[in-house]
């Protein structure tokens, strides 16, 4: 009998998640790709140093008590003329250690980027599922809104949302709210591509018989969408999320550089670059150079990781 059950012990056949991951093609491709290994390494180092910034940073740049104005404009790796202190990446005009501000700034950048992508992803997935599964007028309305939004540059949309949100928040909360408004603005400007991809995948999956099998036993549309369709639509979403993360970090930096993003009391990498470019022509290059390099390394490695992920998860490119 060709269909005979294979003899096997129950324990040996059922593999854990981690074990299955270790044996997967995906992990094999990862191990073999230098681009993936290097960019994953850079991302991990940057993310870990941002998370553990308070432990790593030599000074807390936002504690006024620890600042010494005499330390201002110290070049990197050189002792200060007055105090004799030396800083890895120099100091800015107020004597803040640039290395420490970068670590703290990266926290804001990464947090805003990740939260914005998460927000965009959740919104996009919900919209895409509704649009693809129900079709009809819900589909038409959602997709036309998406089309219209795509005709505007996303940074313009983000600035518009940021402006409106800033207008409606009272002045005394503005600095506290700035980060959340930034997340909302970037997230809202970025949900469209998630919605489109999820809608496309939903249209394919909903006509498969396993969805029919779930429908005929009376499962609710919500259960079918989240339990059946979504897991099968998730791998392109993962790729877009990674690439969007790089774009969101850059969008946040752009907004902050333009002065409409993170306030100087909670500077992100973009804010640091904006502050730094004021000193560029007076010779204090390090105040701009190091935050800019960090942003470059972060965005580039996240983007390359996303590119690799797209190729690795696309069976047609194998």
């Amino acid at each position: 009998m060709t269909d005979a059950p294979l003899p096997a012990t129950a324990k040996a056949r059922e593999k854990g998640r981690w074990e299955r991951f270790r044996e997967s093609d995906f992990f094999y491709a990862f191990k073999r790709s230098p681009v993936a290994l290097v960019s994953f390494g850079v991302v991990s180092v940057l993310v870990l140093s941002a998370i553990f910034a308070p432990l790593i940073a030599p000074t807390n740049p936002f504690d006024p008590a620890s600042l010494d104005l005499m330390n201002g404009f110290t070049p990197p790796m050189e002792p200060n003329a007055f105090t004799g202190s030396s800083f890895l990446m120099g100091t800015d005009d107020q004597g803040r250690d640039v290395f420490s501000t970068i670590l703290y700034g990266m926290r804001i950048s990464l947090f805003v980027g990740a939260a914005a992508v998460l927000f965009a992803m959740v919104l996009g997935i919900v919209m895409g599922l509704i649009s693809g599964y129900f079709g009809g007028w819900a589909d038409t309305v959602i997709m036309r809104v998406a089309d219209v939004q795509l005709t505007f540059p996303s940074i313009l949309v983000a600035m518009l949302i940021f402006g409106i949100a800033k207008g409606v928040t009272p002045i005394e909360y503005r600095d506290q709210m700035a980060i959340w408004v930034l997340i909302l603005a970037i997230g809202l400007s970025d949900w469209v591509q998630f919605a489109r991809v999820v809608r496309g995948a939903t249209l394919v999956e909903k006509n498969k018989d396993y969805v029919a099998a779930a429908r005929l036993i009376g499962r609710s549309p919500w259960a079918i969408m989240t339990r059946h369709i979504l897991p099968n639509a998730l791998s392109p979403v993962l790729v877009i999320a990674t690439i969007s993360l790089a774009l969101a970090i850059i969008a946040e930096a752009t907004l902050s550089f333009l002065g409409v993003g993170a306030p100087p009391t909670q500077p992100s990498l973009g804010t640091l670059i904006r502050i730094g470019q004021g000193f560029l022509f007076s010779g204090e290059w390090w105040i701009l150079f190091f935050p800019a390099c960090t942003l470059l390394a972060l965005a580039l490695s996240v983007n390359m990781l996303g590119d690799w992920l797209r190729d690795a998860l696309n069976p047609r490119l194998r």
Partner: protein
Amino acid sequence: MSAFVTVKGLTCVFDVSKPWLNRVLERRGKAFLTAVSDVDFQVEERTTYALVGESGSGKSTIGRMLVGLLRPSDGDVEIEGINLAREEDPAKVASVRAKIQMIFQDPYASLNPRWRVRDIITEPVLTQGGDLEGLAEKLLQQVGLHPSDAGKFPHEFSGGQRQRICIARALASQPRLIVCDEPTSALDVSVQAQVLNLMSDLKDELGLTYLLITHDLTVVRHMADRIGVLYLGRLVEEADPHSLFETPKHPYTQMLLDAAPRVDGFGREVPPPQGEIPDPINPPSGCTFHPRCPIATDICRRERPATRKVGNALVACHLAE
């Protein structure tokens, strides 16, 4: 025995019109495709009713309406007197849903690739509420797979094994009617026989009722207690297998049987079936079979034949005797 399933005047019409703007620009009206037209039949409990017909004859559409995946445009499907499409009481709907299950044609598309076999099989019970403990293992054993297969994913199985998993899922909620939509047409011939034998064993063991949708006449002869022949969404002949295969009444049934390959007819000249199934958007007038019918007369072009009893069979033909 009382009829378990009663289908009366079942009709399904699909709107296949182009979008509104195209219709206005091209000056065209709406277009409708009649997939199923005025079909009546009854299925007795613990029997197998087979629906046969060419591609596009509406077999699968009837199956989907029966289990409630499609709403009939007209007519009724009653399962133990309850009409799934019209019933308002959710408790009654749930009780009917629990009684019917479906096995699909393509075992590669009918199992969610991200779910473990255990979760796939127990999903119907999970929805209705019931004891899940050891259920998947028991059902896997019942369909001839190993209990330890419950922890695997669908891609680890062959087509025949997947179809067994589908059968196990269909059995999980202890249904009384299983609609089988071409359950073996995606399988190898050797595996087909195994799956069919499993299905008939389960039928005897559990007292199941099958609605078997297929285009494979040998399968039908093997399995069915009653056969309905569909042509362009209409039931043209209904009879028990013996009468149908020995003395087919409708010219279409005769044509189908002549076209089927036979073991004893090796090297025999087979007259190819005449013509093709017509466009269901613009079906022929009168009897829809008349353009292909060798014995058609004037009345066939004008009037749709009513179903009448000829010998042991119910036939929709003006001329059959």
